[in-house]
Structure formats: C-alpha cells, structure tokens
C-alpha cells in the first residue's frame, strides 16, 4: 500500500468517522463501532501476502465489545483472499450473521449503460461453484 494516510471527522456523539489508507497495524487497540472495507480484493502490502485476511482478523476483536458491523464492498479480482472466501462460503446461504450479495455494475448503478470491461460483479475471478 502507499504511505498511510488518515482522514477523520469527530462527531458530537463521541464517534469518529475515520478513513484510513493503511492496514491491520493501526487497528489493534481501538474500539470500533463499525468497520467498512473498501475494495478489499485490491489491497496490497509489501510486508504481507494476505493484507485483507490479516486486517480482517485484526479487526474482529476491535468490533467484539460493541457488536459492530463489518461491511466489505469490492469489485472481484481473483480466486484468492477474503472477498473470495466470503463469497465461496456464504453466497446464497441462509445465514442470519453474514449476507453476501453480488451484481453487475448496471444492477447496482442503473444510470450507467453497459460500459464493458470488468463490470459483471462475477467475472472469472469469482464463480459460484
């Protein structure tokens, strides 16, 4: 990943919205009320082969006391990593703890005409087996 940056907004209710471009190292020890992973399939870190999985494992204890939600949103990329595992294990499964959804660009954003390229939300990288 590139150099770590953090952008934060402190709110009156004691919650801080923080957007970080960093990894699992900065999560530990914080009390998280929610965690949102943006484009996990593309996370890279020169010191970790599995930055998405390591970040996920580091995040769960920080969410434990608050029972906060974890949301992952990403374009699929390859048959590896956290997004692939979640899709493989939970997509289409009646599970009240985990919901996985998938759709093409035009499904989620009908204002776009078919733009070609990787817009399927289910390319060769993540195929339901």
């Amino acid at each position, binding site marked *: 990943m590139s150099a770590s940056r953090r952008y934060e*907004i402190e709110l009156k209710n004691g919650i801080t*919205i923080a*957007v970080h471009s960093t990894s699992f190292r900065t999560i530990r020890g914080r009390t998280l009320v929610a965690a949102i992973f*943006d484009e996990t399939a593309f996370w890279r870190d020169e010191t970790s082969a599995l930055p998405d999985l390591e970040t996920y494992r580091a995040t769960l204890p920080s969410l434990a006391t608050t029972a906060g939600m974890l949301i992952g*949103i990403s374009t699929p990329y390859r048959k590896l990593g956290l997004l692939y595992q979640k899709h493989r294990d939970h997509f289409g499964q009646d599970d009240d703890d985990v919901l996985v*959804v998938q759709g093409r660009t035009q*499904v989620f954003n009908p204002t776009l005409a078919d733009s070609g390229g990787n817009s399927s939300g289910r390319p060769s990288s993540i195929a339901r087996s």
Partner: protein
Amino acid sequence: MNIDCAFRDKRLFAAALGDLSSWQVWITVLCAAFALPLTAEQQQIFATIAGGRLPPAKRVRELWCVAGRRSGKSHIAAAIAVYLSLFVEHRLARGERGMCLVLAGSRDQALAVMGFVHGLLDASPALRAEIVSVSPL
C-alpha cells in the same frame, strides 16, 4: 431511525444522494442487512443479487457486496459509515470514544471515500450540525 428512512429523507441522506431511483438496489441490500421488511419490489431485487437465499431474520454481523466497477461502492461505503456513526446506538462505556473505520487500499481511494463522507454531511444541515472537528484533507 432505520437506514431506509434515513436514506430517503431529503433532510438527511437524500440531500446528497439525489434521485434515489438509481440507489434502489443498494437500499435493498441495506434494508436486508438490517433485517427490515422488504417491499415486493425489494424482494424481487434481493432475489437477483443474493443467490436464492432468504433475507436475514436479524441484523447481520457482516455484509459483503461484490459489485462491478462504477457501481457506487465508495459512495455507499461513505453513506453506511455516516449512518452507522450517527443513527445507531453503540455499546460504549461511559466516556469511551468509538470509531467507525473505513479502510481503503490506497491514499487516493481513502481520499475519494472521505470526499463522499464530506459531501453527505455538507449537503444536510442536520448532519453537518453533528460535526465537532474535521482533520485536514
């Protein structure tokens, strides 16, 4: 206030999201994730994106959205962050501060998400009034 009402309220999220007709699938996903009742139209939408499963019976611990490029992912990530920060009561000890953390894979991506967070808060006087301080972008 539930997430469906918050998103549709022109004094809140709809102030920045604008025409909600293009956000119907995302709103359906969030309603399902929070175990809100789905309308008949939302049930049809859910069936097309959830692999044939039933909607969750309670708010899920984890929501994973696999979506194509330019699906509005960063925008919705920002909206979820604002909603969870301002409209959900959290289990915090007295005096404890909580963090709603959005993790992005790059500085540019983080900046893009934070831009959407700012846009959502700035567009609504009610949401903007909840800000104490903002770190420089």
